[in-house]
C-alpha cells in the first residue's frame, strides 16, 4: 500500500485493512457511509467485454449491445434501485487504456472525475484477464472503491482456462465476482458486492514515475503478467472448436471470400427479396391500398364533403416466398374492390369557397401527394419492412463477430481510399441508415478518417430505404445494368476516397483491430437491438417524410414546382437527358434521396412510364450519389462542424449531376438510346 499518493481514502475506510473477496460488515456508521458511495456506480471496462449487458441486467434498460469494439459511443445513464438505495448507473465507452488521448478515454476520465463519490465497477472479459488487469491497475491509481466483475465465465470455461478468483481478490484487495451476464447469472452477487467495494491494495505506479504513456503502460503490463501468473491457468483444448475454425475461415484470403459471398447472398435474399419484395407487397398492397387508404379516404370524405366520386378498382395482393430474383413460390393471393386516391369531379368552377378549402385539405391528407396516402404508406409500407429486415441481418452479423473479420478482409481495399479496414463497419451500417452510420464513424481514431468515411457514406452508400426503391427500379433493367451500377458506384467511391485522402492532410489511423471470437448471436439481444435501431429510425424518419410530402404538396399547389422545373430544365433535360417531369424527384431528393427515388420509380414503372432504360440508369446513378437526407446533413454538422457539412453539400450535389451527366453522354455516344 505504498503509492496511492494521488488520492486520499474515502472517509471511514481503513487503509490498513487488507481487502478480501467477501464483504466484511464493519461498524454501522462506516457501512452507511460506504453504502452512500454506492449511490453512483460507474461501469468501466475494455471494449467488447459485456459492460452494456451488465448495465442492462443491473438496470433493466435497453442499451445497444454488439459484438464489436466501440458500440457505446455515448454515456448511458440509468436510475435504479440497488440494495434499497437509489442509484445512478453510468455505462462508459469501452477503453483499453484510461490514459489514452482518445475521445472515449477522455469521456470516461471526465465521468469518473465528475463523480468523486462513485463506486467503480470494472467489467472484464474473464478470458482476457491480462488486458483487464492493465485497466485495473490504472483504476487503482485513481484511488477509488472498485469491484472487479469477471464476465463471460462460460466462455472461459469452454476455452479450458481457469481463474483463481479468491486469490485474485486477495492480490487486488477488492471483491471479484464471476458472471455470465448474457444469462443474467452472477448479477445479484455484483449488487451484493457493491457495498464492500474498496480501494485496491496494490503496488501502483507512482505519480512521480514519469515517462511516456507507453512506458508507464509497459510497467503496468509487467505487473499484470505477474498477477496473471499467480491466478490464471490456461489449458489449450487439443482440437480447435468449430467456431474457432469458422472464425479463421472468415479471414482467410480465399475461404474468407467464399464466406463473404455466402453472407452477401443471404443478406440479399432476406433483405432484397423477402423484405423488399414479399413484405413490402403485403404491407403496401394488403394493408395500405386494400384497407388503410380506402378507410382514410372515406373518413376524409365524410369530414370534408365536396362533390366528387372515387372510382372503385380491383387491387390484387400476391404474397409470395421468393427463391431467386426470377422464381417465387406463391403462398396466397386476394383481390379486393377498393377506392383509390384518384377521383372524378364535375367542374371546379361550381365549388364554393368552403368546398374548395375542404378539397385542399382532402388532397393534402389523402390525395396523390397526401400525408396519409403517400408519406405514411411509403414510410410504413415500403421503408419499414426493408429497414427492419436489414437491421435484423446487421444485428445478427455484428453479434456473431463477423464484422471485424470483414474489416480484416477489406483492409487493403480501404487503404487505397486512405482509410483503414475499420471504416468498413460504418459503411456496412450505412447500408441500413447513413445517418446512424455517420454517428458510428467515431470508432475511427483520426478526424481525417472520420470525415472521409462520412463523405463516402453520404455520397456513395445507399441506405436500405433507397436500396429498396433502387431494387424496384433495377427490375426494369437487365441484370448487366445492375452489375454495372454496383461497379460504377464502388468505382466512384474508391476514386473519391483516393482523391480525398490525397487532399486531406494527416495520417491514416493505424489498423490495429481486436478480433472477437465468433459467437452464436443471442436471439433476445438481436431482437432488442433491432427494435432499438428501428425506434430511433422511425422517430427520425417519419416526421421527415411528412414534412417532405407537405413541402411537395405546397410546391405543387403554388405552381412553384413548374417555376423550378423551368430553372432546372437545362441541367436535367439537357445534361442528364431526362424528361422535365423528373425535376421534382431531384428536388425532393435534396431532402431525402430515397423519397426522390420513389418519384423516379413512379416515372420508370407503371402504364404511363416515361423513362427509357438509359434514362432509368442515369437517374438511378444521379440519385444514388445524392446526399442521403437532411438528417444526415445535420448529423455531419454535429459530428464534424458546420463548415465540413457545407463543403460536403457543395461537393456532393454537383458531383452527382456531373457523374450522372457523364453516364448519360457516354451512354448516348455508345448508342444506348
Amino acid at each position: 500500500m505504498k503509492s496511492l499518493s494521488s488520492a486520499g481514502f474515502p472517509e471511514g475506510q481503513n487503509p490498513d485493512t487488507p481487502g478480501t473477496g467477501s464483504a466484511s460488515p464493519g461498524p454501522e456508521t462506516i457501512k452507511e457511509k460506504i453504502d452512500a458511495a454506492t449511490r453512483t456506480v460507474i461501469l468501466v471496462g475494455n471494449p467488447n467485454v459485456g459492460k452494456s449487458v451488465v448495465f442492462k441486467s443491473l438496470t433493466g434498460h435497453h442499451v445497444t449491445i454488439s459484438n464489436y469494439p466501440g458500440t457505446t459511443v455515448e454515456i448511458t445513464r440509468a436510475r435504479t434501485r440497488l440494495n434499497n438505495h437509489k442509484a445512478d448507473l453510468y455505462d462508459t465507452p469501452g477503453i483499453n487504456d484510461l490514459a489514452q488521448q482518445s475521445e472515449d478515454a477522455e469521456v470516461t476520465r471526465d465521468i469518473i472525475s465528475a463523480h468523486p463519490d462513485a463506486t467503480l465497477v470494472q467489467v472484464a472479459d474473464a478470458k482476457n484477464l491480462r488486458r483487464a488487469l492493465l485497466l485495473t491497475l490504472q483504476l487503482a491509481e485513481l484511488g477509488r472503491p472498485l469491484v472487479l466483475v469477471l464476465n463471460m465465465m462460460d466462455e472461459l470455461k469452454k476455452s479450458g482456462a481457469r481463474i483463481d478468483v479468491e486469490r485474485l481478490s486477495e492480490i487486488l484487495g477488492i471483491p471479484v465476482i464471476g458472471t455470465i451476464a448474457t444469462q443474467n447469472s452472477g448479477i445479484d452477487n455484483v449488487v451484493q458486492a457493491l457495498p464492500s467495494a474498496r480501494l485496491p491494495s496494490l503496488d501502483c505506479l507512482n505519480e512521480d514515475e514519469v515517462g511516456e504513456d507507453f512506458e508507464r503502460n509497459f510497467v503496468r503490463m509487467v505487473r499484470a503478467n505477474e498477477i496473471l501468473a499467480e491466478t490464471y491457468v490456461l489449458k489449450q483444448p487439443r482440437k480447435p472448436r468449430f467456431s474457432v475454425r469458422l472464425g479463421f475461415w472468415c479471414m482467410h484470403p480465399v475461404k474468407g471470400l467464399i464466406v463473404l459471398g455466402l453472407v452477401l447472398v443471404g443478406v440479399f435474399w432476406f433483405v432484397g427479396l423477402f423484405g423488399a419484395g414479399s413484405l413490402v407487397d403485403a404491407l403496401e398492397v394488403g394493408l395500405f391500398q386494400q384497407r388503410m387508404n380506402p378507410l382514410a379516404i372515406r373518413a376524409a370524405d365524410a369530414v370534408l364533403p365536396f362533390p366528387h366520386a372515387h372510382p372503385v378498382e380491383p387491387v390484387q395482393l400476391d404474397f409470395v416466398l421468393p427463391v431467386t430474383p426470377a422464381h417465387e413460390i406463391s403462398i396466397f393471393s386476394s383481390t379486393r374492390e377498393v377506392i383509390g386516391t384518384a377521383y372524378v369531379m364535375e367542374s371546379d368552377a361550381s365549388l364554393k369557397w368552403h368546398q374548395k378549402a375542404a378539397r385542399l385539405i382532402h388532397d393534402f391528407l389523402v390525395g396523390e401527394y397526401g400525408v396519409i396516402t403517400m408519406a405514411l404508406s411509403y414510410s410504413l409500407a415500403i421503408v419499414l419492412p426493408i429497414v427492419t429486415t436489414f437491421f435484423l441481418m446487421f444485428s445478427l452479423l455484428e453479434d456473431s463477430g463477423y464484422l471485424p473479420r470483414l474489416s480484416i478482409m477489406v483492409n487493403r481495399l480501404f487503404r487505397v481510399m486512405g482509410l483503414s479496414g475499420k471504416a468498413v463497419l460504418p459503411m456496412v451500417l450505412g447500408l441500413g441508415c447513413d445517418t446512424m452510420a455517420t454517428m458510428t464513424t467515431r470508432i475511427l481514431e483520426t478526424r481525417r478518417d472520420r470525415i472521409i468515411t462520412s463523405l463516402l457514406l453520404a455520397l456513395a452508400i445507399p441506405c436500405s430505404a433507397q436500396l429498396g426503391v433502387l431494387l424496384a427500379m433495377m427490375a426494369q433493367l437487365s441484370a448487366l445494368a445492375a452489375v454495372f451500377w454496383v461497379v460504377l458506384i464502388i468505382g466512384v467511391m474508391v476514386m473519391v476516397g483516393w482523391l480525398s485522402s490525397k487532399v486531406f492532410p494527416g495520417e491514416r489511423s493505424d489498423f490495429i483491430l481486436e478480433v472477437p471470437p465468433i459467437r452464436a448471436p443471442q436471439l433476445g439481444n438481436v431482437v432488442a437491438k433491432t427494435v432499438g435501431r428501428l425506434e430511433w429510425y422511425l422517430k427520425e424518419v417519419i416526421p421527415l417524410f411528412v414534412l417532405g410530402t407537405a413541402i411537395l404538396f405546397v410546391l405543387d399547389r403554388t405552381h412553384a414546382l413548374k417555376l423550378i422545373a423551368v430553372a432546372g430544365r437545362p441541367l436535367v433535360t439537357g445534361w442528364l437527358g431526362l424528361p422535365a417531369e423528373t425535376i421534382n424527384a431531384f428536388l425532393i431528393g435534396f431532402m431525402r434521396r430515397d423519397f426522390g427515388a420513389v418519384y423516379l420509380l413512379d416515372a420508370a414503372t407503371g402504364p404511363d412510364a416515361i423513362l427509357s432504360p438509359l434514362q432509368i440508369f442515369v437517374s438511378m446513378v444521379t440519385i444514388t450519389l445524392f446526399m442521403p437526407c437532411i438528417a444526415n446533413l445535420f448529423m455531419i454538422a454535429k459530428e464534424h462542424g458546420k463548415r465540413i457539412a457545407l463543403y460536403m453539400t457543395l461537393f456532393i450535389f454537383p458531383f452527382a449531376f456531373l457523374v450522372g451527366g457523364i453516364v448519360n453522354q457516354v451512354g448516348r455516344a455508345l448508342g444506348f438510346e
Partner: protein
Amino acid sequence: MTKGAPEYLQCSLCGLEFEKTDTVCAHGCPMGLSCNHVRCPNCNFEFPAPSQTGRWFGKMFRRRHRHGQRHQNGETVTLDRLRSGDRCTLQRLGCGSNGRKNTLTVFGMIPGSEMTLLQRHPSYVVRIGETELGLDEEIAREIYVKPI
C-alpha cells in the same frame, strides 16, 4: 537457372535427389522430342521435369516462403518476415509513433511476451495471450520478434 549449371531434381515417389542428366529415359521412347518427363534412376518413376511456367504456377499456390529463408532460433527479425503459424517472442517495438506503441502495449505486446502469427493475408493477424489482433503490414514491419 543458368545454363550449364547442374539441375537437381527430386523424385516425387522415392525422394531421391538426382541430376537432370542422370535421368534413365529409355531410348526410342515414342513420346519424341517434346517429352519433358524424367525417370528416377532409383525407382524408375516417371514424372514431368519442372518447367519455368510450371514453377511459376506452383509458386502461386505454394505456402509463401518470404525471401525463401527459414529463421534460426535467436535471430531477431520483423514480424512480417515470419510465416503464418510461426510462434515468436517479442523483442521490441520499432520506431512507430508513441501512440501506436502504446496501443500495442495495451493489447499485451511487451518485450518477452509470446505471440503466434495466425495469418498474413489479407491482413496480419497475431494472437497474443488471449487477444487476436488484426494488423497492417506497415505495423507488422515495426514489430521485432525472435522466432521460437
